[in-house]
């Protein structure tokens, strides 16, 4: 059967409404709740004597207003209690390491961000790996390259007037030709920004089962 009946369409519409009402619920719980309500509809449907618009409507009405279900689901998050923390994660990952330019210990914000990321239920494993590895330190590498341009040479002269002058030159940063350095700079900027946009997008739809 490839055609969807009127009942199927009404059920699809209900589930889509529920899906969007549950948007704020972590993917983990949201998918499980949707899955179980889909099963519930299947069970209820099998029990109907007559399947028509009104009996399907009554079945869905018994399950309830998606907003009521979402309100109950809000309480799942209270237990988790990390939604406020989740909001900080992308920013800590992006910017948290930058103070480390001044003094490396000040870069601890990024490590905190990684800790929050891995203990959160909002993101799945692949998101956590991306958040950690692209790029470690967030914009730190970009900032480092910017304040100490690749191949920069710093010269310091010692000695006073009349004395023979000795000049010491030290190179810092990587010795890179501009045609390599510039694309690298762009990658170091774009990659962490991409990661942060990735982590900030709406909870995704994945089929995760937690038991």
């Amino acid at each position, binding site marked *: 059967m490839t055609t969807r009946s009127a009942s199927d369409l009404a059920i699809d519409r209900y589930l889509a409404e529920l899906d969007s009402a549950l948007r704020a619920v972590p993917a983990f719980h949201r998918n499980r709740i949707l899955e179980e309500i889909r099963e519930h509809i299947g069970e209820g449907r099998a029990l109907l004597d007559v399947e028509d618009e009104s009996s399907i409507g009554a079945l869905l009405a018994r399950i309830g207003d998606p907003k009521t*279900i979402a309100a*109950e689901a809000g*309480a799942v998050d209270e*237990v988790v209690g990390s939604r406020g923390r989740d909001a900080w994660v992308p920013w800590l990952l992006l910017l948290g390491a930058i103070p480390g330019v001044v003094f490396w210990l000040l870069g601890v914000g990024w490590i905190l961000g990684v800790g929050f990321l891995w203990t959160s239920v909002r993101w799945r494993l692949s998101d956590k790996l991306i958040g950690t590895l692209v790029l470690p330190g967030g914009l730190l590498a970009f900032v480092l390259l910017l304040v100490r341009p690749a191949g920069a040479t710093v010269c310091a002269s010692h000695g006073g007037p009349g004395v023979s002058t000795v000049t010491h030159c030290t190179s810092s940063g990587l010795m890179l030709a501009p045609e390599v350095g510039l694309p690298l700079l762009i990658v170091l900027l774009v990659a962490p920004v991409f990661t942060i946009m990735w982590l900030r997008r709406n909870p995704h739809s994945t089929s995760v089962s937690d038991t």
Partner: protein
Amino acid sequence: MRCMVPGNDPAWLAQLRRGSVEHCVLALLSQGERYGFDLARTLADAGGLIASEGTIYPLLARLRRNGLVETTWRESSEGPPRRYYRLTEDGALALSEFIHEWKRFQIAVNSILEQDSAA
């Protein structure tokens, strides 16, 4: 009744339900395994315990998260395999604590309400 929020404000009712319905689920499961649909229908038919059948699923998610219930997929005699809910040891403990506290609570509330109606 001075001790309650006036009127039929759904906020207090929702709060009252939340704590007690969770334990009603645990009580139902203490009699044996059940699947979601069965739990939802039983609670809905009891009247006034849950706002609608669908609200049972976020509630079950919370119980699962707290380790009070667990699920297994099993073939059923009629129809497709089902997800059965079962009480864990922690769940059984939480239930017995609730039963104890609930009895005390009920007696205390009733004694106040009866005083109130007698006055």
